[in-house]
């Protein structure tokens, strides 16, 4: 049966047949996907479609990190959850949906937050990382951990009706987040969806595109968005792609002589660096009109 040594069984061939028959994809690409693994940090607006599509596509092992529980006000955009899982741990709710879609893959949940103490060893367990988080200190942490562990990072963000997407830490010359933004923006310039608002479909668009980039990285098919930033204005229906700088030799995380390393990262103070805590601990006020 496995004359071509792709390692897929009959059920997998049946399940993924529409991708396998695609001329530019094929059975070897599917096999790479099935052998691959992805860590999705955040099971919210971005993580919902990313996790659904990566599980559906057949990524062999999907890890989901989230410390929060599902709230009713999440569901207008976090479509992996449902009313019945309000109050459930988000990572568990997301994992349940992924397994219901594809019981043939492994889904691992990480119920504590990503921290300087656990980030590098967690990231090391996966081939590719998807930043589906919602705050600046976590984004710097994820980028630094990917530099230290040598993993490509699919970074997406969404707020209001705007979205952004790129692949960091990729190949010989891909920059990391710090290469672009070595100084953290002031806390007042880092709006969160819970405070500023977001149109539900917007993280839907970006999160699905993040799944696409992760599929390209794991399967080896297509050109990942490395050194290119996709800027999406959903209200105007405008998508434009901008060319980005290469990795910086002076970067403290990924340059020639990085000061942020596997050894030093656990003691790096991301809250001090960004002037904000990762978790938005104060529950948002119920909306009064």
């Amino acid at each position: 049966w496995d004359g071509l040594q792709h390692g897929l069984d009959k059920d997998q061939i049946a399940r993924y047949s529409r991708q396998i028959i695609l001329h530019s994809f094929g059975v070897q690409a599917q096999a790479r996907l099935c052998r691959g693994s992805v860590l999705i940090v955040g099971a919210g607006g971005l993580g919902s479609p990313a996790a659904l599509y990566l599980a559906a596509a057949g990524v062999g092992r999907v890890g989901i990190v989230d410390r929060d529980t599902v709230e009713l006000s999440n569901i207008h955009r976090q479509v992996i959850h449902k009313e019945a899982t309000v109050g459930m741990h988000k990572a568990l709710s997301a994992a349940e949906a992924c397994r219901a879609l594809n019981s043939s893959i492994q889904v691992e949940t990480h119920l504590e937050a990503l921290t300087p103490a656990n980030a590098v060893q967690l990231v090391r367990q996966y081939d590719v990382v998807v930043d589906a988080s919602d705050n600046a200190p976590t984004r710097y942490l994820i980028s630094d951990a990917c530099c230290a562990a040598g993993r490509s990072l699919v970074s997406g963000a969404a707020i209001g009706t705007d979205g952004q997407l790129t692949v960091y830490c990729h190949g010989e010359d891909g920059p990391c987040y710090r290469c672009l933004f070595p100084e953290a923006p002031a806390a007042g310039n880092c709006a969160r969806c819970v405070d500023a608002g977001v149109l539900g479909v917007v993280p839907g668009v970006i999160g699905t595109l993040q799944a696409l980039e992760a599929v390209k990285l794991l399967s080896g098919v297509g050109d990942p968005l490395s050194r290119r930033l996709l800027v999406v204005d959903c209200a105007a229906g405008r998508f434009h792609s901008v060319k980005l700088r290469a990795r910086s030799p002076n970067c403290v995380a990924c340059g020639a002589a990085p000061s942020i390393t596997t050894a030093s990262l656990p003691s790096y103070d991301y809250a001090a660096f960004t002037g904000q805590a990762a978790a938005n601990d104060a529950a948002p006020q119920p909306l009064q009109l």
Partner: protein
Amino acid sequence: MELLFGNQKTVEADIPVSNGGQLTVAEAMAWARDNLLTERPELFMKGSSVRPGVLVLVNDTDWELCGELEAEVAEGDRVTFISTLHGG
């Protein structure tokens, strides 16, 4: 970003050039801050450069690839300021 520029996403401007020479991005930014900004300048610039978290583009290309503050801009060029987003 547009909140700082009277809620306009795109502004076309003719910037007068001193010394009859080329206009640099640094000069274009200073001019924008002095002539277009309707809100707090510190949300746009820090010193003579752009504040942290803002990516500057010249015609859809990262300014780091064009000389940053010293990049020269001419008639028809587009300078864009993009705030990095963190939400999800």
